[in-house]
């Protein structure tokens, strides 16, 4: 027995499932399901297929390729995508810079960037975090000093995920160091990563993989036309961007799929009994998480982030980690060499990056509970 969808939503779901499982190449989806890393080319290929069908950026304004979907439909879209092993549209493009440009940038920038952003013709990197800032994002130090028609940018960003593939980077930079509050005096700037003075250094993570980078800016000259919105109003756009990542924040579909894989493997190896209690326990927790995501979706309005997003982020990350721990543990002693241990180590990031679980608890205690 399941929550009943309306016939309309049921049809929508079937269409999504049909599309994802037939139009996105199986060779790409099977890599996702095996939790392997995709190449840049594979990610671009997949997103372009989605975009051609109008399924890459449903959350954008209609005129820029968005869809007039209900929150529930967006949930279904995301869930089915994950269950089918379809790589999600690149978040930096689809969920971050795209909506910011669409909402706050000049018409010129919209026309210049939005279509290419949706189609992943431009690969965007994110330039928010800095080495000395961490969770305290607003204390960033990278400066942009105006000289005539250009900003001269100096400083360093870090934790730039997949920055090694980046064509452009969207940045928070300090344009008014004298502003009375650190949140003021920050601007939102778009930088071509091929500009002289931009250097990308990949950071090896504890699983041996390379997915985050440091990006250095040494007297990088950026046309003032690349400024999004108003100078010194960047913090507003950043908050909009950070709050925008609501649908899919809990990554339920992916966890469900990995858990199904765990069940399958445990069965194949004859150890299902040994892990059955953990498996059903996680299934039950994922059920609670998905129904929570549905509740949040049902009660969201006007694109404003529901405060319970923090609940989804915390529990979503805990369950991603728990499922990857299960997969690792099923490997027994072979886990020392297995890919599953590397994924487990890599997944420590999900409770750190994108607003650590400590930051989320602060939000819940403050915003929701009023403590």
């Amino acid at each position, binding site marked *: *027995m*399941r*929550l*009943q*969808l*309306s016939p309309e939503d049921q049809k929508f*779901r079937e269409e999504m499932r049909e599309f994802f499982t037939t139009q996105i190449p199986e060779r790409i989806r099977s890599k996702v399901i095996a939790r392997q890393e995709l190449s840049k080319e594979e990610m671009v290929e997949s997103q372009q297929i989605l975009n051609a069908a109008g399924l890459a950026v449903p959350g954008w304004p209609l005129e820029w390729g968005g869809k007039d979907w209900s929150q*529930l439909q967006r949930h*279904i879209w995301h*869930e089915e995508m994950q*269950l089918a092993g379809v790589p999600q549209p690149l978040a930096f493009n689809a969920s971050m810079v795209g909506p910011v440009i669409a909402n706050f940038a000049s018409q010129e920038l919209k026309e210049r960037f939005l279509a290419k952003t949706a189609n992943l013709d431009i690969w965007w990197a994110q330039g928010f975090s800095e080495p000395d800032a961490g969770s305290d994002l607003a204390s960033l130090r990278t400066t942009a000093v105006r000289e005539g028609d250009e900003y001269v940018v100096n400083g360093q960003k870090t934790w730039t995920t997949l920055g090694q593939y980046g064509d452009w980077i969207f940045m928070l930079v300090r344009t008014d160091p004298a502003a009375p509050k650190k949140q003021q005096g920050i601007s939102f700037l778009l930088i071509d990563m091929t500009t002289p003075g931009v250097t990308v250094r990949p950071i090896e993570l504890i699983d041996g993989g390379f997915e985050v980078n440091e990006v250095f800016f040494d007297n990088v000259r950026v046309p003032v036309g690349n400024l999004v919105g108003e100078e010194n109003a960047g913090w507003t756009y950043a908050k909009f961007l950070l709050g925008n990542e609501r649908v899919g924040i809990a990554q339920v579909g992916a966890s*469900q*799929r990995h*858990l*199904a894989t765990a*069940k*399958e493997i445990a069965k194949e190896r004859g150890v*299902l009994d040994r892990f*059955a*209690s953990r*498996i*059903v*326990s996680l*299934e*039950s*927790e*994922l*059920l*609670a*998480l*998905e*129904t*929570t995501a*549905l*509740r949040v979706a*049902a*009660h969201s309005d006007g694109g404003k982030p529901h405060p*319970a997003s923090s*609940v989804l982020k*915390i*529990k979503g990350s805990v369950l991603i980690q728990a499922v990857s721990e299960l997969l690792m543990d099923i490997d027994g002693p072979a886990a020392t060499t297995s890919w599953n241990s590397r994924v487990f180590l890599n997944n420590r990031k999900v409770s750190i990056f994108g607003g650590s679980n*400590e930051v*989320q*608890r*602060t939000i*819940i*205690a*403050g915003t*929701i*509970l*009023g*403590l």
Partner: protein
Amino acid sequence: MEFTIDTEQQSLVQAVRGLVGKTYDSSEARRAVTKAEPGFAAWDQLAEMGVLSLPFEATAAEVSLAAEELGRVIAPDPFVESIVLAGGLINSVGTDEQKSELVDAIAEGQTLPVLAWLEPNRGWSAQAVSVTYSDGKLNGVKSTVVQADRADLLVVSAAVDGGTGLFLVTDGYATETERTHDGSRAATVTFSDTPAVALGDGGDALAALKHALNLARIAYAHEALGAMAVALDITVGYLKTRKQFGVTLNKFQALTFRAADMYVELELARSAITWATIVAADEGSTPEDVAAAASHAALQVARAGRHIALDAIQLHGGIGMTAEYSVGHYASRILAIGQMIGDETFHLDRLAARIDDHTVLDPIG
């Protein structure tokens, strides 16, 4: 699919909240009620308001909404035990005559039935072993029969040829009653050639019994949910006002983070338990669907319930330990509900037995 409640349901919630909020307007009022016999006080008004007829006339959604309100004030009235469970079984298994004789009387509060199903040292097994039926008589022992002394009708599960049958008993049994830690009463009931009448056809009714227990588990879970929500509210209020070392407790990050974790657990529990009610209310659900949903709801009570109950006390410190303050009673009630509906192992085992039924467990159909 629907997580929102309609206007009519909203009115029901307001009405029940108003009623029980008046009867149990403080922790002290509830304590006074549970100290006296029979230990509950809102029954007649609940009957008058029509709450006691919900299992017979409305859906699982209305039953759950009412149960949640009772949970918010930890009303000691045996709504789930007597109405949802015992009344529900009479309504589903009884003959037409039995139904017409009993259901209205139950809904009007004239007859208070309880179900005697648990047996000593047999956990939460629904199969009757200790109590047997033959030749119109029951023999054996039932345990933890909530409000057996107050009840004027026992529904008793008993071993019969070919399974577990259900029987009605009004007299001829002995009770040994104790207080439960949450302020109710429960009895060990001994049957010795006790005259009994078959409920329904008197044959195997194990499936119906299990289904009724699962529906009751879901209603119970809502009762626990209401109590969990209020326990958190009380705790948050305390953290905002209680001063230690010159500042209010909400200046201590370690405490506010624990409150945040309680909120996370509460919201996830609310989702899963509400989902279980949606399953129970859906006419397309099979008994297996309801059983699984009940187990998912019960797991939330076992885990989130205990977590919230115990941390609510801890975050209060000493005051949380006292019977004069409310939070300990909330903890006790949440704990007791978990003990009535089955523990973590019981429900994980039930779910594990069906682990192969699905690849991915998806709450949307």
